[in-house]
């Protein structure tokens, strides 16, 4: 066990005068001001609606999408794994028989309430056939009415992979 002596500041004459520290601080702020005034591109602020963010990675959990098979049909088999895993209970699936012999089941309705969703990514983890993903890169979803925030199967299928 050793001792560490923590030096006490504020006892020297320079510290007690207070003005040197004050001018030091003012020098720092002035350097920032002059740097930004001479060239405003030094400021990292993005003027949002005009400038979109460029640092959204492929792992960013955005709005969901339903993936397609090679023949462009829906990949989902309506196994209800995502709806079971969902902590916010925002996924509503209605299953139906698949008639084209590709698979046995498919969703008749598949809707996600984005106002309920907590964007945890649990549905993506739970899906056994990679049918739901959150890689659209859409970080804002705007609508006029509450009902418009419930995305149906067609809207989810229409979402494209972002980035």
């Amino acid at each position, binding site marked *: 066990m050793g001792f560490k002596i923590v030096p006490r500041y504020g006892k020297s004459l320079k510290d007690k005068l207070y003005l040197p520290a004050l001018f030091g601080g*003012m020098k*720092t702020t002035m350097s*920032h001001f002059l740097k930004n005034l001479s060239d405003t591109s030094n400021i990292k602020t993005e*003027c949002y609606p*005009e400038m979109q963010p460029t640092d959204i990675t492929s792992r960013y959990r955005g709005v969901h999408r339903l993936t397609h098979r090679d023949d462009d049909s829906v990949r989902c088999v309506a196994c209800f794994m995502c709806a079971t895993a969902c902590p916010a209970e925002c996924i509503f699936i209605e299953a139906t028989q698949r008639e084209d012999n590709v698979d046995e089941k498919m969703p008749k309705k598949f809707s996600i309430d984005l106002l309920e969703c907590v964007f945890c990514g649990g549905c993506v983890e739970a899906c056994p056939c990679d049918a739901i993903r959150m890689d659209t890169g859409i970080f804002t979803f705007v609508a006029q009415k509450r009902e418009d925030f419930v995305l149906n199967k067609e809207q989810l299928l229409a979402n494209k992979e972002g980035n």
Partner: protein
Amino acid sequence: MNAILVTVVIVNIILALLFSLGAVPILVWVERRVAGFIQDRLGPNRCNIAGFRLGGLVQSFADMFKLVFKEDFRAGDIKEKFIFRISPVIVFVSAFLSFMVMPFADNLVIGDQTFLMQGLPIDFGILWFLALAGLSVYGIMLGGWSSSNKYSLLGSVRAGAQVISYEASMTLALISLLITYGSVHLVDIVNFQSGLIFGFIPAWGIVMQPLAAIIFITTAFAEANRTPFDIAEGESEIVGGYHTEYSAMKFGLFFVGEYIAMSASSAFIVTLFFGGYNIPWVGTQMLKEHFDIVMIAILIILPILSYKFRGWILKNNVWPKADDKRNNESKWLIRVLIMMNIVIILLFGYFLLFGVASTATNIAVALIQIATFAVKLLLMNFVFVWVRWTLPRFRYDQLQELGWKVLLPLSIANIFITALVVVIGA
């Protein structure tokens, strides 16, 4: 009463209005933009009228309009309605009137008449300023008390205690200045500062009385309720302080009053310590005698500065979206800049070619001095803003300690030293 007298008086009053009331939107804008730049942010830059942003200045007017049209709410618990209503007016009027004695230029001579270039042509400016600057705290105290809100009351108590402890040092620092200058007339004080000491240093107050300057500037910050001494507002501790219960234009008057008080303090500091309307090394008499040299100097410097400013506009005044109407602004700003240059060059060229009457010289010298005063005032206001965004707020006990234990003994010691120097020197 003759026409010239009336004109000069009206011009003076308009100038005083411009420097105090007209400066408020500019000061609010400066405050927000400088704060943004100091903290590596942008500050308000979006608001525009037909694409004209003026660097974000339009935002100040928009905010003012918002305050005017907001609902003027008053809690039913407030019993002293008259005092509640009158206190923002007291703050505003006293800050506004204290600006009126600042000299913008040396005495103007037209024909055989001499005019004081002040809003209020009186020769006891310092006393007037002290009286009215001390009055504004009554508005804060009455407003906080009549709000029937604990936070407001705390804010007003703090404001009262602060003014008592800082006004003393402020006045004592002024006394040492008065010993040096030997006059309470602000024009005399400024003319005293137009001289030189040792032949090359301008005899500004800050050179003659550095300690008094530091004390006075510190107490002026406290007087204007600006950070680091804005414990009367103290929004991190007591919500909004004295103006918690105020809304709409009543709050707006407090707000405007604070900025006018800041501008008045800056003007007073400039007048007392930074040579007022004097250009360093160039006195009024020299300006009048060598006016053609001054005009040639302006003719050379102005286009160079304008060209640099044009480059700055082209580089920095861009809106990220290509086809936005805000992008047309730079073009028009540069056109206005070129027009101003042409007008000034034509005017001075005419003067240079055909000579100037002595009255015209006097007026032009006054204009140059007004411009100098305006630049100095803006720089001093910038210092106020700069300090606000550098220093954190003092704790209440630290503030009282600084006031009573440091500034007061220092200012008294300064009086003795000044008096000794004056007596021995005489």
